[in-house]
């Protein structure tokens, strides 16, 4: 049981020295990733890191590459589908070897973009052509282009709502709750499904609704200077109060701790769940589930967050992963060529039923109900996202993490002590302190 002492000490010393030796960080070198002028000139093998393992496995990505090669014959594109994308790429980004084109992991601080990615051009030019450029704008340069974007809203089963006697979209949170009540009393469906166990449906869809309430493009940026984001009638207050009320009034599933996302798609398609807050990307998935279950895919409806400003609904329009070029890439021109081609010419966004990053591209069919009802799109400003994320991390609240809303639900259903007001006060206080510390 006792290791020989001198050797142990020697090893520990070596370890410490090795640790100290590793501490030097590397900063990126290399210039802009310029779009090539002549497709015949670019060559090289590039690696594309993607979280869409399904598309890599099904061969869909290879088909895109083959199509790409018709224009750029000398570029060889290889794909690496990564299941735990965030976790794995974050660690790989400590080295220089993280592909040529990759999706920017959410953990990378916005201000660190210039250290990891090659600039794609001046934002002033880029924003004319692309949506969502603000998200990757650092110092007037754009570092990433969205693979696609989605609008936020509630997915609901039209047949169930009709059976409950609701035909119009609710315009206030109270109306929404009343509608859920009608669903509960007149049908067998669970009025709302939280997906508590899987967690992520509690994080991004709810936080993405910041802006839908106030109809304010700068709603997210305001969090950087807001000392009390959960104060009465603020976006977060309205959003989280609605979630609290849904659970507190027992309109959510009975046992949230054992929910299952994959199964929830079938349940919604079959009318066993009446609604879920998600992005428009989920519409096609739900329709597929309905087809597989032998139900009518047209029963899958999509409606905006139940708040109106001046008689109009607002829905946030947000970008999915942003594609960027590795600053250490040896084939920047080829990488840029792929990035541009994939965004503009591949038809990927249309296929996914999502909003294209190209401003000139038409809105997808899945958003037709929004178009028909004059829902205003809010393309949220991302100018201060870096600061907001810094405060968010420092406060350990996690606006785009599941934990704090899981606790909110626990309070609402009485599984943890506390009250809604008390919890909002606590969140406000934590945010305020972190904001002061982070120099917000």
């Amino acid at each position: 049981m006792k290791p020989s002492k001198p050797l142990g000490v020697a090893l520990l010393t070596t370890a410490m020295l090795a640790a100290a030796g590793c501490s030097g960080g590397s900063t990126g070198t290399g210039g802009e990733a310029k779009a090539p002028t002549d497709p015949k000139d670019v060559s090289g093998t590039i690696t594309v890191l993607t979280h869409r393992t399904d598309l890599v496995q099904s061969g869909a990505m290879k088909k895109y590459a083959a199509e790409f090669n018709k224009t750029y014959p000398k570029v060889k594109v290889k794909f690496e589908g990564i299941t735990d994308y965030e976790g794995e790429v974050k660690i790989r980004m400590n080295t220089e070897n993280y592909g040529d084109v990759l999706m920017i992991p959410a953990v990378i601080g916005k201000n660190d973009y210039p250290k990891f990615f090659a600039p794609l051009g001046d934002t002033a030019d880029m924003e004319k052509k692309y949506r969502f450029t603000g998200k990757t704008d650092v110092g007037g340069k754009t570092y990433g282009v969205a693979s696609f974007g989605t609008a936020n809203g509630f997915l609901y089963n039209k047949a169930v709502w009709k059976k409950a006697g609701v035909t119009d979209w609710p315009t206030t949170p109270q109306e929404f709750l009343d509608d859920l009540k009608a669903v509960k009393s007149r049908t067998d469906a669970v009025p709302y499904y939280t997906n508590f166990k899987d967690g992520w449906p509690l994080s991004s869809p709810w936080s993405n609704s910041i802006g839908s309430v106030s109809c304010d493009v700068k709603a997210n940026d305001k969090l950087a200077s807001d000392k009390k984001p959960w104060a009465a009638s603020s976006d977060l207050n309205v959003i989280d109060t609605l979630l609290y009320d849904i659970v507190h009034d027992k309109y959510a599933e009975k046992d949230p701790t054992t929910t299952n996302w994959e199964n929830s798609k079938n349940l919604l398609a079959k009318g066993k769940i009446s609604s879920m807050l998600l992005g428009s990307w989920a519409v096609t998935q739900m329709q597929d589930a309905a087809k597989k279950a032998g139900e009518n895919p047209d029963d899958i409806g999509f409606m905006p967050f139940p708040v109106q400003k001046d008689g109009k609904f607002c829905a946030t329009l947000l970008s999915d992963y942003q594609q960027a070029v590795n600053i250490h890439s040896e084939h920047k021109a080829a990488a840029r060529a792929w990035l541009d081609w994939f965004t503009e010419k591949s038809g990927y966004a249309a296929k996914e039923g999502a909003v294209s990053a190209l401003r000139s591209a038409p809105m997808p069919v899945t958003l037709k109900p929004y178009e028909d009802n004059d829902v205003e799109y809010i393309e949220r400003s991302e100018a201060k996202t870096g600061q907001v994320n810094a405060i968010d991390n420092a406060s350990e609240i996690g606006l785009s993490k599941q934990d704090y809303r899981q606790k909110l639900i626990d309070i609402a259903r009485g599984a943890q002590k506390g009250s809604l007001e008390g919890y909002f006060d606590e969140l406000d206080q934590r945010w305020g302190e972190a904001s002061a510390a982070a120099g917000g």
Partner: protein
Amino acid sequence: MGSGGKFSSASAGPTSRGSAPGPAAQSPQGLDKPAAQSSPWVEKPAQTPQRLDVLRKVTPWLFLLVPLALLITFTYVPVGNMIYYSFTDWDGVSPERNLTGVDNYTQLFTRPELFRVFFVSFYYLAASAVQIVIALYFATVLSFDLRFRNLFKGILFFPYLINGVAIGFVFLYFFQDGGTLDSVLSWFGAGGDHAWLGDAESANTSLAGVSVWRFTGLNFVLFLGAIQSIPGELYEAAQLDGASRWQQFRHIIAPGIKPVLSLSVILAVSGSLAVFEIPYIMTSGATGTSTFVIQTVKLAFQFNKTGLASACAVVLLLIILLITWIQRRLVPDEKVDLV
């Protein structure tokens, strides 16, 4: 623990061999000695005695080169790095990191919510006690001649062989509303619809129950091995003297397996403090089931506080080392002598 033990035994042997002087030294095995003397091929002195001497000294180290390199690369360097990170404000990706001194440690000890999660460990500690008692009981019973003895051994050990992730998923269905547990209970008329993972107390108890189910097999096998190493004549003699089963256990088995028992207690305590996969997969720490390790993982990978998380890991390491040390002090590792 495991690697430390292996390391010490591996290094002790060769070092003493290396210091043995000259070719005439008796090799511990005594196997190569007759070969070196009687074999006709080794007769011609191809190598000078000095070179042989050097070779003899170096050889064990050459053999150790690979394991040592692996050990240093994958154990000591990461631990060193972790200790270094715990003094920085590193976020896990940024090329910049600043030394912040003991700031992370001060935070850890001044923010009560970071330490409060240790209370969850008491559920697992209580479960470990249950686990050891069950394992000991079955090990004792199955060490005597019984029908289907091997079958029962297999059944008890089986859960330990299943991957922890799979167990998490299986038990998620088990505890589901209207799941296996509810239906089994309803056969006996005790069917309610209790949300087993619904509130903190029942969730923690349920999760601790899963960990008992999983790890009893390991304790059981350890105990069984130890019990079977007790010479059989002792039981016979005890039986002739009229000792009951309980007396046999009390005076022969219990003292005979004392070292294994104390090892199990150390493993149980450190295991309870470092519970991770079962609650992480089943509840991901929601509803008050978060443990210290889950919290550490969340700090590191959700809030990008790699520095603070490293400090958490260092503190956990120190706590476990401390407990082990205290435990070894209280129950010294003495030789078992039953006769």
